[in-house]
C-alpha cells in the first residue's frame, strides 16, 4: 500500500517537472525507501556513443571512483529488469545484488537505474518497483522531450517571423547582411557569417558571434575565414532566383541535440537570400538611376566672369526611376548668361528621354541667341508636335551685365518662382507664372525682371524642394525654406545649394541652381 501511494505521487509529479535535472530527485528516493536497499544510482547516457552525461545517487554516493563500476553494471541496452551479483565496493558496504534496468528514448539521453540491495531485500518486489519507476521515468523523459520540441519549434517560428520583419524593414544591403546573423545569434547558433559571391569569390559581408572576442580572433585569420566559406554541412547556400549568391555559415558551440534541424536552417537561409538579393538589386538599380541622372545633367557649369555658380541634384528617397529635373547654364559671346531649369512630369525612361531633349533644345537655342520666350516657345512646339502627353515646367533666367550688377529677365512656364537673397535683408520669392509647356498650342509664359547687386544670389529650383514634407507633414515651402535660407545667408554658394537640398526631406528629386554676383564684379 505504501509503495502504491509512492508510485501514485510519482506519476503526479512526473508530468509537472520542467527539466531533466529535476528527475533524479523525484524517482530515486522512493526506491531508496524500499526495505534492504543500500544505494540507488542513476546514469544519464549520451544520446550517441558510450558516454555518461550525469551521475545521480541516493544512499552510497556515486563518487568518481565508483562511476566505472556503475557503468560496468549498467545493462548494455534497454530491456527488462536484470538482477546482477554485487562486486567490489558494493559488497564491502553490504550490498549483495544489484537490480538494474535501462531505458532509451529516441533522440534523447537514455538512462539506467541501479538499485543495490542486501540479503534482506525482496529482490522480486524491488524488481517490480524498479520496472514501475522506469516506466514513470521513461514517460517523464518523453514528455520533457515533447515540451522541449514544442518550445524549440515556437522559438524557430518566432525567429523566422522576427527575421522576416527585420529583413523587410531595410533595403540597405549592408544592414540586411548584418541583421541576418544578428537575429540568428545566439537563439539558434553561437555564430553566423554571411558570405556573398563577388566576381566568383566569397566575400565576408556580415559576422556575429555570441563571443565577440572569439569572432575578432577568427576574423583576423584570413585562412580560417576562407575555410569557413567552403561548402560544409552548416555552410548553407544562399540561393535567390536560381542563382547562388553566397553562403550562410552557422557556428555551433552546443550539444548536438540542441542544433536546429537543417530544414529550418535552409528555410532561414532562403529568406535571408531573398532579402539580400532584393537589397542588392535595389542598390544596383539605384546606382544605375543615379548614373543615368548624371548623364542628363551638365558635367560642369561654365564660369562666367562676375558670377559664382553652383548646382546640385538630389535623387529622392526610395526612388528607382530616373527623374525629369534638369538645369543648365550657357554663356553667350556677349557675356550674357542664360540659366535654365525645368521639370518633366513623371519618371522613367520616357521622361528621361524628354528631359535630355528639353535641356539640349533650350540650351542650344539660348546659346545661339534666341530669347528665352522664343526658346521656350520652340520647345512647346516640339512637345505639341510629338503628341506627348507629358508636360514640362521650365524657366529661364537671362542675366545681362548692367552697371556693377546684373539685370535679370525671368521667363517662366509654370515653374516655381526663384528666390532672391540680398545681402543684409531677408530672402524673397520672385515671380512665377505661365502655364507648363506641352499643354497649350501657344505657350503662356510669365515674365518679370529684377536686378542683382554685388553679393545677391538667385536660387532656382524644382518643386521637389518646396513640396518635400517634414515628419509632421508640413511642406518645406511653408516654414523650413525661409529658416534654411536665413541660416545660409552668408554661406558659400555651393554650401548653400548642398545644405538646402539636404534640409528638405526629399521624397521627389530636387534640382537646385544658384548664381551669386561676386563682390568685385568683373574679376
Amino acid at each position, binding site marked *: 500500500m505504501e509503495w502504491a501511494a509512492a508510485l501514485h505521487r510519482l506519476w503526479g509529479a512526473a508530468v509537472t517537472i520542467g527539466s531533466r535535472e529535476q528527475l*533524479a530527485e523525484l524517482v530515486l528516493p522512493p526506491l531508496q525507501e524500499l526495505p534492504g536497499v543500500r544505494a540507488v544510482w542513476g546514469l544519464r547516457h549520451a544520446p550517441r556513443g558510450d558516454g555518461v552525461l550525469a551521475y545521480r*545517487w541516493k*544512499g552510497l554516493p556515486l563518487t568518481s571512483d565508483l562511476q566505472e563500476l556503475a557503468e560496468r553494471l549498467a545493462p548494455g541496452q534497454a530491456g527488462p529488469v536484470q538482477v546482477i551479483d554485487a562486486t567490489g565496493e558494493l559488497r564491502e558496504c553490504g550490498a549483495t545484488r544489484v537490480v538494474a534496468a535501462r531505458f532509451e528514448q529516441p533522440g534523447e539521453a537514455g538512462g539506467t537505474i541501479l538499485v543495490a540491495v542486501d540479503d534482506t531485500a525482496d529482490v522480486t518486489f524491488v524488481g517490480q518497483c524498479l520496472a514501475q519507476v522506469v516506466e514513470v521515468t521513461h514517460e517523464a523523459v518523453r514528455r520533457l522531450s515533447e515540451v522541449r520540441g514544442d*518550445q524549440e519549434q515556437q522559438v524557430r517560428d518566432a525567429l523566422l517571423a522576427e527575421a522576416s520583419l527585420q529583413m523587410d524593414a531595410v533595403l540597405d544591403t549592408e544592414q540586411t547582411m548584418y541583421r541576418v546573423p544578428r537575429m540568428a*545569434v*545566439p537563439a539558434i547558433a553561437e555564430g553566423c557569417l554571411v558570405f556573398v559571391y563577388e566576381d566568383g569569390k566569397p566575400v565576408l559581408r556580415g559576422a556575429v558571434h555570441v563571443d*565577440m572576442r572569439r569572432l575578432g580572433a577568427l576574423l583576423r585569420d584570413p585562412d580560417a575565414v576562407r575555410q569557413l566559406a567552403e561548402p560544409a554541412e552548416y555552410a548553407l547556400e544562399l540561393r535567390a532566383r536560381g542563382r547562388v549568391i553566397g553562403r550562410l555559415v552557422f557556428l555551433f*558551440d*552546443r550539444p548536438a541535440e540542441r542544433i536546429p534541424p537543417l530544414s529550418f536552417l535552409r528555410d532561414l537561409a532562403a529568406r535571408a537570400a531573398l532579402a539580400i538579393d532584393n537589397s542588392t538589386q535595389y542598390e544596383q538599380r539605384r546606382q544605375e538611376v543615379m548614373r543615368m541622372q548624371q548623364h542628363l545633367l551638365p558635367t560642369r557649369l561654365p564660369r562666367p566672369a562676375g558670377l559664382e555658380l553652383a548646382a546640385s541634384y538630389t535623387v529622392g528617397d526610395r526612388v528607382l526611376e530616373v527623374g525629369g529635373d534638369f538645369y543648365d547654364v550657357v554663356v553667350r559671346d556677349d557675356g550674357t548668361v542664360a540659366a535654365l531649369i525645368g521639370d518633366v512630369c513623371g519618371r522613367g525612361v520616357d521622361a528621361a528621354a524628354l528631359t535630355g531633349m528639353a535641356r539640349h533644345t533650350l540650351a542650344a537655342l539660348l546659346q545661339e541667341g534666341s530669347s528665352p520666350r522664343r526658346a521656350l516657345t520652340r520647345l512647346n512646339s516640339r512637345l505639341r508636335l510629338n503628341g506627348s502627353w507629358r508636360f514640362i515646367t521650365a524657366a529661364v533666367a537671362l542675366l545681362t551685365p548692367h552697371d556693377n550688377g546684373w539685370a535679370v529677365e525671368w521667363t517662366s512656364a509654370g515653374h516655381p518662382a526663384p528666390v532672391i537673397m540680398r545681402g543684409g535683408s531677408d530672402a524673397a520669392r520672385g515671380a512665377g507664372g505661365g502655364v507648363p509647356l506641352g499643354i497649350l498650342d501657344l505657350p503662356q509664359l510669365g515674365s518679370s525682371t529684377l536686378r542683382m547687386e554685388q553679393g545677391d544670389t538667385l536660387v532656382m529650383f524644382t518643386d521637389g524642394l518646396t513640396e518635400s514634407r517634414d515628419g509632421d507633414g508640413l511642406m518645406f515651402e511653408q516654414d523650413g525654406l525661409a529658416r534654411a535660407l536665413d541660416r545660409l545667408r552668408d554661406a558659400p554658394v555651393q554650401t548653400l545649394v548642398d545644405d538646402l537640398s539636404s534640409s528638405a526631406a526629399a521624397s521627389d528629386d530636387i534640382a537646385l541652381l544658384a548664381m551669386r554676383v561676386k563682390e568685385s564684379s568683373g574679376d
Partner: protein
Amino acid sequence: METDLVLVVEDSDEDIEAIARAIGRSHPDVRLEFLRSGSGVLPRLTAGGHEPPGLVLLDLNMPGEGGLDVVRQVRARGEYDGLRLVVFTSSENQAEAEACYAAGADSYIYKPINFALFQSVLAQTLDYWRSREPNVTQIVVPPPGESSAQA
C-alpha cells in the same frame, strides 16, 4: 562565469520583468540582482561585503550612463577582466556593436520582441558563458547518505 549571480542593469520595468521571468524559467539556479542605472554598477562591484557577479547583463540605452559607458568603466579597471559583460539591446546600429566590442564587451546580443525567442536568447547566452568558464569545474561532494544536487 565564476558564480551564478547575474547583475542585470536595465531601466525598463517591462524588460526587468521579462528578464526575471525568462531566466527564472530557463536557469532557476541563477540568481539575479537588478540595477536600474549604469551609474550604480561600479559602486556595486567595488563595495565590500557583496558577492561579485559572474556576468553583467547591460541595456545599451539608458538615461545617464548607458551600457557602453559601463563597459568602458569596468574594463578600465583591470581587476574585473574575468567579469562577463553582455550588452542586450534591440538596437540595430552596427557601429554601436563595434563600439561595445572595442570597449571590451564580451557579447552584444539582440533583444527580441517575442517572449519565447527572448527567453531562448538569454538561455543560450547564459549556457554559453557558463560552459566556457576557464579553470573552474563544478565539483559536488555530498555528505554520505545524502543525495547529489548536481553532478
